[in-house]
């Protein structure tokens, strides 16, 4: 791909192209473009020169040793942290100065490494909160229970059950979210993120704490979600079978820097990556 120009803080900078976009997405503009992204905490540079492009329907993997800055990248993308440097373009739009809530409305949804559900609410309500911005009735219609309220609540109820059925969880709709088993909580978090109608879904260690068969099922479901919703998915994961199995493009992070990008085969044979994970060969 040719170098493209984007606008950043008043000057034109070239975006380095990345060749991990799957072929079917090549004709379309990418969903996410990060250029020179970086953040410092005090004097410490946590992430630096993070450049990546993610295609419309790509499943991308972000891997690296512990403390490499993977979750920090997610926090930068969702503006939990404001980046010190660089730009993030979502579907061609600059996300500079946006709040996490606005980022979600622009189209990025995420899950968290340490599960963050609305523990005291029911499973269905958790999903309905994800549908919050697709329901449109006002506070007053809600209090007076105008027809708009009944109509949209009914639609939300049906949509919530529909979304839960992706993971076969519709029978759990009335359970309290905090009382679900661990695996179900992880799945519910994904459903809630999907409910916000994202174009890019960020999954932070979705398979953490799952056994191999659950992980295998999750892999299938991630691909299924991509196919159903036609969205891009970016995931952080330590389970290499999952990453190598479903990610079309993989980006390896170490000490806040990208050390390799490419397909699963390319990454597996990359000496820098092997060194980062296993140490230098004597």
């Amino acid at each position, binding site marked *: 791909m040719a170098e493209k120009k984007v606008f950043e803080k008043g000057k034109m900078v070239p975006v380095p192209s990345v060749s991990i976009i799957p072929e079917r997405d090549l004709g379309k503009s990418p969903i996410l473009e990060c250029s020179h992204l970086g953040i410092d905490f005090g004097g410490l540079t946590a992430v630096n020169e993070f450049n990546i492009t993610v295609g419309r329907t790509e499943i991308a993997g972000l891997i690296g040793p512990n403390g490499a800055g993977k979750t920090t990248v997610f926090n930068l993308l*969702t503006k*939990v942290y404001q980046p010190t440097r660089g730009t993030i373009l979502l579907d061609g739009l600059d996300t500079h100065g946006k*709040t*996490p*809530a*606005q980022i*979600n*409305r622009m189209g990025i*949804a*995420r899950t*968290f490494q340490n599960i*963050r*559900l*609305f*523990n*005291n*609410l*029911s499973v269905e*309500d958790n999903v*309905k*909160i*994800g549908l*919050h*911005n697709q*329901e449109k*009735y006002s*506070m007053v219609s*809600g*209090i*007076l*229970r105008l027809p708009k*309220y009944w109509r*949209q*609540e009914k639609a*939300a109820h049906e949509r919530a059950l529909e979304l839960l059925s992706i993971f076969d969880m519709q029978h759990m709709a*009335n*359970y*309290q979210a905090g*009382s679900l088993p661990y695996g179900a909580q992880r799945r519910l978090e994904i459903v*809630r*993120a999907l*409910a*916000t109608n994202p174009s890019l879904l960020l999954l932070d260690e979705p398979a953490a704490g799952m056994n191999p068969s659950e992980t295998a099922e999750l892999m299938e479901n991630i691909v299924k979600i991509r196919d159903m919703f036609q969205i891009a998915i970016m995931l952080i994961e330590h389970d290499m079978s999952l990453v190598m199995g479903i990610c079309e493009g993989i980006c390896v992070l170490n000490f806040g820097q990208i050390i390799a990008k490419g397909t699963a085969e390319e990454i597996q044979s990359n000496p820098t990556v092997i060194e980062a994970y296993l140490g230098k060969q004597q």
Partner: protein
Amino acid sequence: MKKLIGRIKGLKKTTKVDFATYLGVILAFVLFTVLRDRGLLNRSITGMLVPICAYIVMAVSLNLTVGILGELSLGHAGFMSVGAFSGVIAAQSLQAAVPSAPVRLAIAILVGALFAAVAGTIVGVPVLRLQGDYLAIVTLAFGEIIKELINCLLVGCDSRGLHIAFNITGNLTINDIGMEPGGMAIIKGAQGATGTTTIASFTAGFILIMLTLVIVLNLVRSRAGRAIMALRDNRIAAESVGINITKYKLMAFITSAALAGGAGALYGLNYSNLSASKFSFDTSILVLVYVVLGGLGRMWGSIIAAAVLYILPEALREFADYRMLVYAIVLILVMLATNNDQLKALAGRIIPKRKGVSSNG
């Protein structure tokens, strides 16, 4: 009939709880009205009916802030105070214009709610970005500020309209605000409201409770209520699904303040004399006790706790001087019994545990 029972069984649990709450309030109202009209209530209980209604509304509205929004407020009496005095001013000054007492009371409650909502906005906008105990301390400070400001307020009314003066130095009296000779004093500084025509009634109190319940319960079960509870349970996750934190925090806080203002107006128009010191920190704490004992987020709990605890000191009359001491001990023991794991386990063996999802509301 069977069909009806089937339909009721098919309802969601939260819906059933809501209906039971409304039904309970209506039944209690009918019961107490009948008892009162038959002369079966003693005078002190009859005199408590309106304040109980006001405190029930206070408790339910505070439960919206503490139980649903999850922020500790220690200044809820401040909003009650704003509502009480603005309501008294409205009712007193409209005596000639609106002869019907119930209409005047309704206007006064609306005015009280409106002014309290404005106060809630003034406090809420800057303050809601604070968290936890810092927010609590600012609401406490706000309550104290309101109390002192109203202590300096002089308000009178004559044919030319309202006269308001602010007695900062402490040298002014009600005669210095430029009223015509025949004018009526409404608020006399630290003495508070004097000579108020008492127009509050038990029926009005009942209607206000019902309105409050409709507003709070329907809000909680709507899109906005879910957003509020989402940011209570997990702020970061709520932001991540696109919920505007400030908007919904403010919505809950202002609604709660407005309802407290309405309760204040009802309360204020039940007494011919009322001073601002009535709405001190202790009053805020009292309402908080109702909310916590009734159960966070559980509106029917707040109603019962407010009614029972308001009457309790009266019921403990036989302990004479010891009654407040007994009240304190009861309070501590109830908290220990409901919150200590060992004691709870003990109680669990006696009373079988409830199954299913715990509901909010």
